[in-house]
């Protein structure tokens, strides 16, 4: 009934779940059920997001893990959407690329209208929610947790949508491990009037903790800043971890037989 760009039926031909969407035809011999990929291959780990005084900050590392191997180390997991929003994704990278493809088409559509109307962050978030939930209902999810941050008319927006269609907004969000390690730190230290420096410092603190404790993370990050002026995604940078603990100097002390 409505065109949302999810017309996979037209794109992928016979890969759609025939068994669910079309009536069964007994004249054709029983086919084995159509299945979809049930697990992700190349994944990104946590994405962090906080609102601050002048806008919204998103942060993510640049790792693409292939199972337990950190296979790719320059994956951009933060992508600008239009002029005033950024999408960050954890989970399957190829699904994230497909989602950004759909969003780019939406933004292009807006651009071609040339009527001064633009998709704001809230509308993008709603669109993503419909997209993710729709796929989930067809048992073929985009295996992602998405963070959408943006600014519209001075209003700051920060929302999350995940692969089962759960969606919410908050002053500070995180995906994956970030929920366990970063959110508690946000809860203690987040304030409405954080300056840019304070916001970045808070994010870097959490990113460092994630680098220490999350085995899928690497010491290479990007931070995205969205304000009334627009979107700026930083160049990749590294943080300075501290390994200078006494116990690390002579790790085999007290472990006879170890080397």
């Amino acid at each position, binding site marked *: 009934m409505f065109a949302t760009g999810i017309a996979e039926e037209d794109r992928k031909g016979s890969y759609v779940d025939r068994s669910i969407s079309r009536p069964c035809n007994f004249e054709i011999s029983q086919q084995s059920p159509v299945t979809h990929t049930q697990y992700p291959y190349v994944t990104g780990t946590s994405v962090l997001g906080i609102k601050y005084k002048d806008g919204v900050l998103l942060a993510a590392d640049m790792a693409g893990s292939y199972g337990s191997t950190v296979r790719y180390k320059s994956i951009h997991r933060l992508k600008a959407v239009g002029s005033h929003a950024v999408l960050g994704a954890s989970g399957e990278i190829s699904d994230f690329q497909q989602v950004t493809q759909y969003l780019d088409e939406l933004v292009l559509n807006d651009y071609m209208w040339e009527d*001064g*109307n633009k998709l704001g962050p809230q*509308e993008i978030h*709603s669109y993503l929610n419909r997209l993710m939930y729709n796929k989930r209902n067809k048992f073929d999810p985009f295996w992602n947790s998405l963070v959408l941050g943006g600014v519209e008319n001075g209003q700051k927006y920060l929302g999350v949508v995940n692969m089962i269609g759960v969606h919410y907004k908050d002053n500070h969000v995180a995906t994956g491990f970030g929920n366990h390690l970063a959110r508690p730190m946000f809860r203690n230290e987040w304030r409405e009037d954080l300056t840019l420096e304070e916001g970045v410092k808070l994010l870097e603190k959490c990113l460092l903790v994630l680098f220490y404790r999350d085995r899928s993370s690497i010491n290479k990050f990007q931070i995205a800043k969205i304000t009334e002026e627009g979107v700026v995604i930083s160049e990749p940078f590294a943080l300075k971890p501290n390994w200078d603990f006494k116990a690390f100097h002579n790790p085999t002390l007290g472990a006879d037989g170890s080397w």
Partner: protein
Amino acid sequence: MFRNQYDTDVTTWSPAGRLHQVEYAMEAVKQGSAVVGLRSKTHVVLATVNKASSELSSFQRKIFKIDDHIGIAMAGLTADGRILSRYMRLECINHNFVYESPLPVGRLVLQVADKAQVCTQRSWKRPYGVGLLVAGVDQTGPHLYQNCPSGNYFEYIAFAIGSRSQAAKTYLERKYETFSESSREGLIRHALLAVKESLQDEELTTSNCSVAVVGVDESLTILDARNLKLFIDGLDESASVPAEDKQADEDESKEQGLGTSDGSGSDVVPMETS
């Protein structure tokens, strides 16, 4: 316009490069009773003349709410108009479902126009016999558009369609420069005065006209009989209100209301003019 051998099919061009069937469809719009629309910086108002086919019948409904932020008024084959309004409502509701935000008015108008165009290029269809004035508010402010059976659409500050609409248009042409800064109540008054011009002999009453308003902070509302009556009664006093007193109107429009019991112009004392 007179019958000729090129006017049977909508898909037949005349040697003069015209599609007569489309033009005949636009005639149907001109036969419908008048519909007027005007906009200010903050509001858009639609007003219609309602014709009752007999004393015993109720009058035709010509104003339809499409969404909280869009309303239409139609002139011509109102049956065709209902189909278009159903389409428009569906488009609005579908957009709202996906984006949780109102469909921009211009985009909806273009979709309706494209739909109308299809009927001018299929041999098994006929053009819609209804003209729409679409009033709506979106991110870019208030808008007033006209949709034609030809598939054309135009944006206006003020316009009128239907029978005797020229009289209303003349009034609008005289006054349109004041619309932009008009208050909500002032705009409604102008709409009623314009519609009045289209009712040559009759008195303006709550049973032969309808008014709808939509604004930047106001969902589309169709004025009920009570409020409409207040505005109509208020017309007589302020019919001679000169430009200066518009300031008083603006002050009182601070209270947003559906025509409060103060009435439209009872706080304004008209100057004596000859």
